[in-house]
């Protein structure tokens, strides 16, 4: 009775068709088409014809100084932002997990940045980072630190982006970690308390190991998210990727080639390279997590 029947298959197709038509048109088809476009030296998007089929675009992207810079910036950004924001989120989640008054209230406050429009709040950050009027320099001035040209000095433009990146990514991680910690069986903690285990030991011997699958999973998501950083750059710098391209990311490069320079094949090749990088790291991280994650 419950074997697949052609009638059921037909009915299922009817139910699926609205979603499938959209997904086929705007996800499946463009996936292949963009890869196809990336192989043409010249591609006419109006006629869908191209000349010079080969790997030239990939060669061009990989030898382009701006792409190399984007790769370097994105790597630094990712390597700094992911561990710091994970650690901060974990500590905050552990603190929020205390049975004290007002924790729900704090949780609500910490989660707020998650829903924010990064272009809009980026304006607030631009203003905070402003070298003359910015509140950050004024506060640092109290501690005797000289004026820093956060957004105009090539030395500080990437750090500024990193600060914005950490801030914008924290909310999600805090809430997910907190839910993970609250999902840990209470008996472990009760046993630890009876044994008089210290807070630090409880954290390293109970919370961390039991949370490790989630930490790895969120780590992968954050890592991939950081590799795709883009809106943060626009939010902070508007129309340019920082002084001397110092806040240029891979995705910024892709859109700059597509929208700014009007070179769809180059943009397509760069986006395929980004995809390959993401695939490699996803694969490596999944391998590691299989070995290291403790249950």
């Amino acid at each position, binding site marked *: 009775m419950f074997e697949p029947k052609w009638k059921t298959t037909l009915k299922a197709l009817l139910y699926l068709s609205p979603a499938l038509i959209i997904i086929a*048109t705007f996800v499946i088809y463009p*996936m292949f088409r963009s890869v196809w476009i990336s192989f043409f030296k010249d591609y006419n998007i109006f006629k869908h014809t191209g000349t010079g089929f080969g790997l030239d675009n990939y060669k061009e992207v990989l030898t382009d100084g701006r792409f190399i810079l984007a790769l370097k910036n994105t790597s630094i950004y990712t390597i700094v932002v992911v561990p710091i924001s994970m650690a901060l989120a974990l500590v*905050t989640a552990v603190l929020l997990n205390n049975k004290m008054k007002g924790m729900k209230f704090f949780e609500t406050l910490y*989660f707020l940045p998650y*829903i924010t*429009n990064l272009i809009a709040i980026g*304006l607030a950050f631009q203003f905070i980072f402003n070298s*003359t009027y910015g509140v950050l320099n004024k506060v640092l001035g109290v501690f005797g630190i000289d004026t820093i040209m956060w957004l105009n000095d090539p030395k500080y433009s990437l750090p500024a982006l990193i600060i914005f990146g950490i801030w914008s990514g924290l909310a999600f991680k805090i809430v997910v970690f907190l839910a993970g910690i609250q999902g840990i069986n209470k008996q472990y903690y009760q046993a630890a308390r009876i044994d008089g285990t210290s807070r630090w030991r409880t954290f390293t011997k109970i919370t961390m190991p039991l949370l490790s699958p989630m930490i790895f999973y969120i780590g992968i998501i954050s890592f991939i998210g950081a590799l795709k950083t883009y809106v943060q750059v626009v939010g902070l710098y*508007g129309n340019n990727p920082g002084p001397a391209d110092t806040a240029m990311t891979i995705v910024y490069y*892709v859109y700059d080639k597509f929208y700014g320079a009007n070179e769809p094949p180059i943009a397509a090749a760069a986006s395929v390279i980004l995809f390959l990088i993401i695939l490699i790291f996803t694969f490596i991280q999944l391998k590691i997590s299989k070995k290291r994650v403790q249950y």
Partner: protein
Amino acid sequence: MKTVSKIIIYILLAAGAIVMLFPFFWMITGSLKTYSEITASPIVWWPKVVQWNNYATALDYAPFDKYFVNTVLVSTISTLCVLVTSIFAAFAFSRLKFKGRDLIFSILLATLMIPSQILIITNYVTVAVRMHLMDTMLALIIPYTASIFYIYLLREFFNQIPEQLYLAAKVDGTSDWRYLWKIMVPNSKNALITIGLFSFIASWNSYIWPLLVTNTDTKRVLSIGLKYFSGEAGTDYHLLMAAGTIVIMPLLIIYLFLRRYIMEGVTRAGIKG
């Protein structure tokens, strides 16, 4: 717990919360200051007289009211479409036993790994060049009327509704259509609200797609209008903060009232993957 450690925890949490919320505080109070207050040294933390007219001035520079209406329409319509297409698709994947179901579903899930940048390049060609939809509301909406991720989430919820209910309904001769709307949808109300909110917020905050497919000022959505405005307003930070506040305020209000659904959805999606 000792009182001392309690106090330390409160201090740490309060310090963190101040850092997290400061940009909002600074943007909103900044939008109500005069130019000389906002650029003053030492810092003026609070406006002496609240400058509501900053908002009127910002509106004079750029049609934020028009952007606002566009954004509300685009976000609402695409969210409603996402809900309908997701309900249908999730129902098929969750209850109907058809040929190739698991294969199609795993192919769809695998595509979630593809960065959207790859898709957007061709989608721009499809929508602007092939469909001639440049500068229309449809162009802003159509690629975002179905979402694999939301289908996946909703299917998870649908799967939690006991299969026996479905089988009993079948025996009673209830049609699939009726069952979907009478049992599945009402029982997944929370999930649908969560998905709707996610979709609405994502649409509200979307940037690169609307930037690509709109040219005319009056067709723009808030993110894009704000971006162009920030190029023009230069150092008029009080006006920039007012414009920024217009963009984030609706989300803050939604968050205030419906945060339970948003947080629930995030933890569910975050834990399950």
